[in-house]
């Protein structure tokens, strides 16, 4: 009963939003350009599915996001682990990284286009950049926040350095690393949409921009919903993986 209630409560706000939308768009006070009727979005959905356009766009964007995400995560993990463990490595990089971190990834777009062109590479790099920082920072803090009481135990029990790293520091950092992975996934979607708006021939961000130019507001909204759904799914899967990996956590 409680479970049903908890799940039902999640849908209250979306339902209210849709109802408001239906009322406003049906009131005749707004032009369909500003607030298209729900039915037109449904039509756009059917069209994009039957023409296959939606799948092409999704496929293009997801592929780029995955490439950038994997690169960003790997770099973030490697640097995060090294900086979390070795104070010297941390001192060497932390100042520089902190300075670069202040630059929003999107500000790199012009330079990236000049350096590597408008192809996939610039988008992949942009995404990797956006993913890198949250993964890095959360890995570092995850490692440094492993309770010192475990380290005291390890010192007394003469646990080898290698085992301290593999069995205490890294597993202890995992929950925090997952926070970084999830934040990074959000960043990745933001970055790909922005990058595709500037230079692309397909993809969800490109399509939103193209639809805007053609004044197809229904399609703009459809793709916004699509991005939200895909982003939500990614977060959902990451959380599922997290649950499996950190089984040892209370509840």
């Amino acid at each position, binding site marked *: 009963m409680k479970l049903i209630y908890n799940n039902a409560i999640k849908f209250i706000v979306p339902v209210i939003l849709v109802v408001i939308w239906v009322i406003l768009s049906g009131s005749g006070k707004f032009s369909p350009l500003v607030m298209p009727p729900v039915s037109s979005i449904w039509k756009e959905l059917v069209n994009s599915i039957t023409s296959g356009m939606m799948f092409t766009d999704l496929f293009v964007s997801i592929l780029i996001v995955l490439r950038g995400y994997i690169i960003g995560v790997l770099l973030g993990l490697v640097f995060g682990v090294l900086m979390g463990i070795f104070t010297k490595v941390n001192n060497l990089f932390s100042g520089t990284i902190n300075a670069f971190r202040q630059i929003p990834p999107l500000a790199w777009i012009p330079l990236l286009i000049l350096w590597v062109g408008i192809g996939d590479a610039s988008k992949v790099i942009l995404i990797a950049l956006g993913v890198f920082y949250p993964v890095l920072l959360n890995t570092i803090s995850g490692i440094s926040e492993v309770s010192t*009481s*475990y380290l*005291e*135990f*390890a*010192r*007394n*029990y*003469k*646990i*080898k350095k290698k*085992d301290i790293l593999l*069995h*205490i520091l890294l*597993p*202890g950092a*995992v929950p925090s690393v997952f926070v970084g992975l999830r934040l990074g996934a959000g960043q990745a979607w933001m970055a790909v949409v922005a990058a595709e708006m500037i230079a692309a021939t397909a993809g969800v961000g490109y399509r939103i921009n193209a639809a805007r130019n053609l004044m197809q507001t229904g399609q703009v909204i459809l793709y916004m919903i699509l991005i939200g759904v895909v982003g939500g799914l990614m977060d959902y899967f990451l959380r599922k993986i997290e649950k499996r990996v*950190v*089984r*040892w*956590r*209370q509840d």
Partner: protein
Amino acid sequence: MNEQLRIEHLSKSFLVNNEKLDVLDDINLNIDKGEFISIIGHSGCGKSTLLKILAGLTGYTVGSVKIDGKELRDSADSAKCCMIFQDHRLLPWKTVRQNIAFGLYEDDKSEENINSYIEMVNLKGFENAYPHQISGGMAQRTAIARALVRKPEILLLDEPFGALDALTRIEMQKEVLNIRSYNHTTMILVTHDIDEAIYLSDRIIVTSNRPAAIKKEFKVELSRPRMRTDSDFMRLKSKIFREFFDTYSK
């Protein structure tokens, strides 16, 4: 008899805000192999510091600590004294079995060896549980097994049952005696519980206020198993109690 630990003229002070804080004052203590010693003293007097020195977690400069004739600070290779902490400090991401086996040499990691310790601390059936899935008493028993499996010379127990409720405490004390019937590791217990000390120990050391010096020593010559309600038990208890009462009124 069979002397194992010899502490001579051990003193220790910390620098706190550039001021010297004396914590241990000329401790002299000899402990035989297999003995069970309890240390009782006021909060903050330096008992944990003494155990931390034995555990190699804090250094010492004045005096000497010898285990089997070897100065402790020179023998950093093996865990001679394993500490049982008040908070069990089991790794939450490892099961009971993995916690016990963690950090052992391959030879000692064998199934039978780990099993025998799991049985010793009565945790059969819980090998694969994670620390958050077991009770505080069970976690502390796991911690004891994790220490004993290394075959330490001396087991150091720093208020190990302080976080447990009164009933579980008594269960744990029985458990410790049960473990000692298999395994005669020397044990040094720091506690605030006079009952606990009398129930378990061969000798009870009462320390003074900070800096901790050995103020009095009681040999517990009651036959085992001991009954908390025996008149001899009570007599000793009130004797030790008065020891503290006097310190307070001074």
